[in-house]
């Protein structure tokens, strides 16, 4: 290529951004929302009022429930409640004959009985969409991973192309059309650059076993299960002895864990061969008090409660991956740091959005030069349906949680699926609207619609439940109050964007 290096990078930046931009916007926006996945789940289950409970007692009640549901299971798993979410999740895996192959229940940790709340996926819908697009494994993950690789290319090529990165560090000129879009794109990219590099690279690392499996397969020719056991510290499965035996009390095990982990609590409990003399109990350290996501486990003899092994400290590679994984999930973050991550995620979403908008503005033909080509018209209308349409889809998802009947007849399928369906239907409608309407009208209508949907959501909440903003502020229920407040703020922000869109359209109309 005859072009200089910088020009090649500019070409690369434009193409990688254009091809992956809409998908990246969706991944970034839903990923940013996922920082508050547990709080979204709490808002979407307003019937739930669970008080925090001592962890060992909660776990014992979980075991009692599992004993009642699936006494002959091969494995019982319990996900313990933590400071962000109060539900005790219990799962059982069996051979399909003596015990069901798989079952899962969501329990109240105080009673050990299933929670009574509307059926919903809560914040998990947006969280899973963020990395698998709600498609069967591995297709969505592969597509998102490919987009993330494009993102890395986009970031690096963008930094190289940005000639005056230091001189223009603080530059944002408003009201100057294409200049302003470029300045905004640069600002949101450069000022949060450490975050963008971290989140993109760490995102790829979380699914690295999927994207680059060949080294692992070469090192573990006997199969992936051996690798997983080594990585997750699970003991090799032992055969049942056939001699029944009760499990030891959990309280001393939790105390031993606290001694090993500087007072930290277990996040997950796995009982292998429950009810048998060869049972074992594995405690996996929770993820709130540490940066690394690498597994830290303690394995106890099930019947006696004797400590069998305290998992070896992670090697360098596993520790590195653990830290990167932990950084991506951000579960270690306190409220302030989580808010800073959220802000940076919004900046990233804005960076992708302004990039796509800049592409359109830059290539718009001058008034005398005739209509724009097919590609330009396609991108311009797709921008409306994706950049303005996705927030509408998210809002519609939340609206559906409050408006769908609490009980759906079984013939209609799961209520959670219907909430997800509303997300996709709303987005499809907005994509079609974006193609049907002239762009200026499309932007105006969709931005005002999304502003309204977000701003009115707390009102809908007040009309359909008693967990409204006044109530949650009064009780210091910051998860629900925060959700409603962020909805109001989002509505305000979108209204400002709608006004801006109208002003830009008016200026263009006056000029042409």
């Amino acid at each position, binding site marked *: 290529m005859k072009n200089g290096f910088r020009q090649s990078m500019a070409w690369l930046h434009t193409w990688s951004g254009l091809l992956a931009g809409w998908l990246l916007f969706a991944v970034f926006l839903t990923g940013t929302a996922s920082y508050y996945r547990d709080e979204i789940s709490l808002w979407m289950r307003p019937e739930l009022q669970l008080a925090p409970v001592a962890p060992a007692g909660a776990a014992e009640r979980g075991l009692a429930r599992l004993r009642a549901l699936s006494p002959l299971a091969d494995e019982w798993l319990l996900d313990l409640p933590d400071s962000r979410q109060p539900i005790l999740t219990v799962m059982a895996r069996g051979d399909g004959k003596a015990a069901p192959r798989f079952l899962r229940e969501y329990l109240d940790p105080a009673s050990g009985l299933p929670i009574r709340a509307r059926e919903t996926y809560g914040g998990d819908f947006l969280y899973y969409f963020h990395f698998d697009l709600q498609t069967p494994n591995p297709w969505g993950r592969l597509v998102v991973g490919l987009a993330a690789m494009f993102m890395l290319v986009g970031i690096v090529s963008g930094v190289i192309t940005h000639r005056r990165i230091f*001189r223009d*560090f*603080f*530059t*944002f*000129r*408003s009201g100057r059309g294409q200049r302003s879009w470029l300045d905004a794109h640069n*600002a*949101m990219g450069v*000022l*949060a650059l*450490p*975050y963008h590099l971290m989140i993109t690279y760490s995102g790829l690392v979380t699914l690295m076993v999927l994207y680059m499996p060949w080294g692992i397969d070469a090192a573990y020719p006997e199969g992936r299960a051996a690798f997983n056991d080594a990585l997750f510290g699970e003991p090799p499965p032992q055969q049942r002895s056939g001699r029944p035996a009760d499990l030891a009390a959990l309280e001393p095990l939790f105390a031993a864990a606290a001694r090993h982990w500087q007072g930290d609590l277990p996040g997950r409990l796995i009982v292998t061969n429950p009810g048998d003399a060869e049972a074992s109990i594995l405690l996996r350290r929770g993820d709130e008090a540490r*940066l690394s996501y690498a597994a830290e486990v303690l394995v106890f003899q099930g019947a006696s409660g004797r400590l069998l092994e305290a998992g070896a400290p992670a090697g360098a590679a596993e520790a590195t991956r653990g*830290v990167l994984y932990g*950084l991506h999930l951000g579960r*270690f973050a306190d409220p*302030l*740091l989580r808010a*800073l*991550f959220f*802000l*940076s995620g919004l*900046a990233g979403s804005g960076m992708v959005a302004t990039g796509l908008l800049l592409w359109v503005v830059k290539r718009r033909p001058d008034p005398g030069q005739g209509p724009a080509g097919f590609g330009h018209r396609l991108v311009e209308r797709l921008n409306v349906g994706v950049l303005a349409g996705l927030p509408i889809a998210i809002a519609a998802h939340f609206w559906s949680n409050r408006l769908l009947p609490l009980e759906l007849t079984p013939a209609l399928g799961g209520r959670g699926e219907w909430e997800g369906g509303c997300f996709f239907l709303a987005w499809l409608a907005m994509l079609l609207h974006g193609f049907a309407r002239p762009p200026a009208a499309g932007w105006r209508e969709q931005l005002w619609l999304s502003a309204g949907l977000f701003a009115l959501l707390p009102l809908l909440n007040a009309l359909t439940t008693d967990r409204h903003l006044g109530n949650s502020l009064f009780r210091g229920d910051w998860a629900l109050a925060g959700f409603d407040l962020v909805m109001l703020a989002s509505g305000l922000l979108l209204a400002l964007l709608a006004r801006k869109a109208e002003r830009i359209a008016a200026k263009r109309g006056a000029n042409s």
Partner: protein
Amino acid sequence: MTSLAFALAYAGFLALALARPRHWAQFRTGRELGKGKAMILRLGGWALLAASLLPCLAVEAWGLGLVLWLGLLTAAALLLVFLLPYRPRLAGLLAGLLPPLGLLALVAG
């Protein structure tokens, strides 16, 4: 502690911005930005940015402290860059107001 770090970071970024003629002009003081003044602003700005790391390390260990610091730098820079073209006076005022507020929070908390 973190509010002090944020205040120092914001003041540092403002100083670095002011060291550039383009942004100095946004304040319309009528006075000129001399080479000496620019040098002082630049040195002071970098010093304030470096200083903003210290409260972060006081609150968290090194790894998390760096993460917190980078997050605060991003927030301070975003605030400044998007405030500067619309409300340069306010942007300047914040640089004066935030550090005392940060110290107050430190002493009170």
